């Protein structure tokens, strides 16, 4: 919605004047800048640097945690465009739109350019020397146990340095927080298979049943899964895989599925157990204790609980029985409840019963350097930090790579609690909500200016160390890399150990070169090894597959029945994770705001998605401003009526609603994180993201939604351009 007075028409008018001015100056040739512009001029250059001709350098994408290899086109010392690095087994030369927008994270005009120290309400620019001295003074003045680091997922040499710094301080408090990580699924996998993140072989599966895992959009490693998905759809033997997506709110993956089943929220585990029961009845061998647990999940009961028709359950069971190997995936939709662990366990059990473990659920490789292995984040970490802060146990807090003030639910009172921390240091690229609360803000190099190594959590083949190297000179002299800052801090504490390293680059080079044997460079000299490493952008490591353990067991598995009706808050809120905005850290990249949401085609805003039946019941039409209120708060946004959602569900996308983060993000849309209720998964203690109940009411206004699709939505105005048929008229198991 466009609320201010500068509307579309006004915008076009101004554009018209602008156009006229441009045309006028074109006539007088004043756009020609003889004697004004400078020519590209170098002091020294490599032979391959030719003005106007691009040179490609390999690096690693930092837009999400998937860790795709990228190739940046650099011309006249400026990085212009990113492509995928073919040498990376994660993305094999491909790239997503989020990754493409990486240049906008780099050239963003709202980047912080020098260290800022709080002076009342303002940040005062100070030198790095003073900033690092101040940190030294502050950490020296408190007990080590009162120092805490809150970071996103970290890996590689930065993680190793961070650990060394914490050791040097004598503190072990490192909280790793990721707002939308699949942490409950990791715990369930650990229980079922003995490992947190098995390799999923979508390409080997003949049927995929995904319980809300948006693996084509925003789940774990979407570019990699999209490539596997292509092979799954067009296998070498010509057999086309069938994808069934079970979820309460349609995701991009759901939109690509052969069959999309709208399930009553929270009942995913019941359906999984019902499928095991149906498969056992059809003759699949199921261990005795599992059979005993699932036998009460008759198709009729499961259909009643989940809202999926008995016919569809029967067909799904038949499909799974007929076509093996299959793959069942538990996504964020299944794990987002207080019984999320049980849901995920039931889904893992279905995989085991189907015999997929070892076939489509494979063991990953061990990482040869455990100190560089990824530290993956969860929501429990923020919860425990928040508790410690509330009890005045944190005196100095460092924050890196996360924006908890934006992503924490309001009911957590994190922003208020943070005021109790006497000294807060935030490492940041932009003034985000968390940086605004800081006492000291340290500006970081962008991912395209910085040195680092990274080991992604999900690697497709073997183990892999990604190299992140500068694609161009720093835009602002006042920023520093995270590695450089940690090294400078370590020099304060352990000067003897680190004084030999002039900067993080020399540390990194020396660390890599001294281990070149294990990094595949045994027979080469140091320079050749290092040049090859930088040129390839990835180092493939020889990893041995870890052992997968665990046999199908239903011990301790109690999946609760469907939710009771709640007359005060009748709807379930699903905070949707979109492929572009994720947890909101990229909301200040205009390309991402401008690219339409794949399902609703809405741009530059948030919306409240609801089923036409729900909308009719509430008297809401598209564009009505509605208030979505939970027990923890309320937000107002434009309503969007859409059939790809369960009638009991209201969905609001995450990522927008920033109060800071610069000109492209501030004031756009609403923040659905804020109204999440404090309900936690019973086993892991993770915040249950889908557990919030809401009520919806009209707020009175109505706006025209800015979106790409036509005014009549997908109904083609009755012209039958693309003819379609309802899914219950198609017998997929008969067709494929």
């Amino acid at each position: 919605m466009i609320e201010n007075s500068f509307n579309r028409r006004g915008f076009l008018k101004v554009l018209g004047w602008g156009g006229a001015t441009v045309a006028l100056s074109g006539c007088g040739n004043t756009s020609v800048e003889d004697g004004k512009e400078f020519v590209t001029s170098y002091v020294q250059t490599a032979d391959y640097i030719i003005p106007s001709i691009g040179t490609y350098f390999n690096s690693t994408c930092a837009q999400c945690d998937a860790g795709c290899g990228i190739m940046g086109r650099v011309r006249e010392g400026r990085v212009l465009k990113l492509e995928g690095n073919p040498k990376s087994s994660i993305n094999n030369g491909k790239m997503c739109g989020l990754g493409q927008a990486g240049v906008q994270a780099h050239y963003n005009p709202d980047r912080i350019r020098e260290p800022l120290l709080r002076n009342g309400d303002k940040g005062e620019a100070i030198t790095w020397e003073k900033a690092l001295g101040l940190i030294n003074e502050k950490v020296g003045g408190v007990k080590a146990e009162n120092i805490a680091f809150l970071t996103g997922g970290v890996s590689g040499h930065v993680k190793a340095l961070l650990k060394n710094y914490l050791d040097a301080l004598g503190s072990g408090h490192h909280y790793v927080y990721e707002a939308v990580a699949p942490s409950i699924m990791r715990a369930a996998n650990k229980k079922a298979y003995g490992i947190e993140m098995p390799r999923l072989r979508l390409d080997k599966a003949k049927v995929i049943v995904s319980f809300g895992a948006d693996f084509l959009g925003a789940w774990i490693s979407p570019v990699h899964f999209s490539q596997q998905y292509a092979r799954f759809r067009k296998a070498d033997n010509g057999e086309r895989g069938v994808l069934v997506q079970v979820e309460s709110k349609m995701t991009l993956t759901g939109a690509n599925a052969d069959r999309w089943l709208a399930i009553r929220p929270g009942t995913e585990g019941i359906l999984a157990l019902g499928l095991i029961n149906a498969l056992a009845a059809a003759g699949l061998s199921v261990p005795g204790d599992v059979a005993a647990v699932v036998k009460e999940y008759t198709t009729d009961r499961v259909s009643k609980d989940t809202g999926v028709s008995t016919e569809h359950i029967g067909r799904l069971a038949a499909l799974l029985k007929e076509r093996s190997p299959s793959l069942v995936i538990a996504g964020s939709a299944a794990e987002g409840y207080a019984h999320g662990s049980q849901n995920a366990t039931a889904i893992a059990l279905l995989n085991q019963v189907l015999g997929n473990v070892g076939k489509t659920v494979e063991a990953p490789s061990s990482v040869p350097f455990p100190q560089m292995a990824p530290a993956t984040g969860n929501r429990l970490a923020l919860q425990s930090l928040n508790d410690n802060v509330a009890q005045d146990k944190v005196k100095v807090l460092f924050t890196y790579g996360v924006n908890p003030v934006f992503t924490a639910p309001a009911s957590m009172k994190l922003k208020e609690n943070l005021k109790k921390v006497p000294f807060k240091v935030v490492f940041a690229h932009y003034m985000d909500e968390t940086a605004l609360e800081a006492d000291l803000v340290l500006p970081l190099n962008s991912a395209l200016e910085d040195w680092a190594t990274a080991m992604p959590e999900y690697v497709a083949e073997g183990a892999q160390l990604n190299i992140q190297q500068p694609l161009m000179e720093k835009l602002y002299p006042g920023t520093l890399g995270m590695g450089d800052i940690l090294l400078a801090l370590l020099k304060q504490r352990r000067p003897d150990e680190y004084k030999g390293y002039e900067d993080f680059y020399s540390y990194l080079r020396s660390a890599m070169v001294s281990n070149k044997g294990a990094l595949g460079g045994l027979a080469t000299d140091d320079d050749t090894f290092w040049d090859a490493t930088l040129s390839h952008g990835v180092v493939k490591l020889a990893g041995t597959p870890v052992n997968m353990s665990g046999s199908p067991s239903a011990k301790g598995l109690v999946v609760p029945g469907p939710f009771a009706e709640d007359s005060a808050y009748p709807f379930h809120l699903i905070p949707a994770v979109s492929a572009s905005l994720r947890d909101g850290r990229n909301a200040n990249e205009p390309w991402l705001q401008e690219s339409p949401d794949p399902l609703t085609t809405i741009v530059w805003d948030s919306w409240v998605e609801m089923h036409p039946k729900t909308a009719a019941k509430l008297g809401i039409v598209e564009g009505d401003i509605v208030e979505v209120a939970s027990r923890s708060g309320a937000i107002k946004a434009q309503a969007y009526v859409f059939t790809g959602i369960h009638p009991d569900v209201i969905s609001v996308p995450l990522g927008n609603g920033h109060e800071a983060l610069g000109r492209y993000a501030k004031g756009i849309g609403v923040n659905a994180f804020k109204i999440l209720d404090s309900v936690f998964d019973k086993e892991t203690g993770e915040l249950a993201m889908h557990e919030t109940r809401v009520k919806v009411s009209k707020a009175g206004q109505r706006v025209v939604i800015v979106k790409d699709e036509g005014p009549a939505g997908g109904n083609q105005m009755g012209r039958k351009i693309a003819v379609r048929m309802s899914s219950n008229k198609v017998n997929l198991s008969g067709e494929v």
Partner: protein
Amino acid sequence: MSMLSRRQSNCLLGELLTMYCFLRFSILLVGLIVSAGSYAVSAAQPLTTADDLGPKVEQPIEFPHDRHAGDAAKGGMQINCMYCHTYARRSIVAGIPPLQKCIGCHQNIESVRETPRIKKLFEYWEAKKAVPWKKVHDLPDFVRFNHERHIQRFVFAQNKPVQEACGYCHGDVKTMTVARRQKPLSMGWCVSCHQKDHPVDATSTKTTHGPNDCWQCHK
């Protein structure tokens, strides 16, 4: 012509100023088309054109092109243009040589080492700062001129002397100190040459025109 009139009517709908602009533009175009007609002669024509001096550009160092590239009889070194403007044959821009190239020769030329310009040059070198040369030949951003194509055609295929080939557009640089734009570099001026017949290569009697498609330059 239909395109022209549509553009005109479009601009009538627009602001007055725009209209004025397009009218001037269309008169120019009509003029071009008329003059194009009169060029329909098949023999190879000389490529020289009238001069149209650009503004004087003040450079950080007053670089003497005459001393470097000028005739030996006039005290010049007769250095090939492409010795310094080395990118011209392989890039769309001719480029300015990196400072290391200047220093590469001048560190061995003791005789001029203490002259003001060379002292300034070494100051830049010692500070490791690139010389902020100003652009002398600029084109609007919607025009893409490719040096490589022209150098490959005239110097390497047709075997023309380098200074003559560069001089078609840049004038007689070997007689100047700091370069100054000599030719209009306008679209009409480009087209006037693209419509002439040029031999395909040094030995062939076959001739051809320069490309005439809009997208060759406006991409």
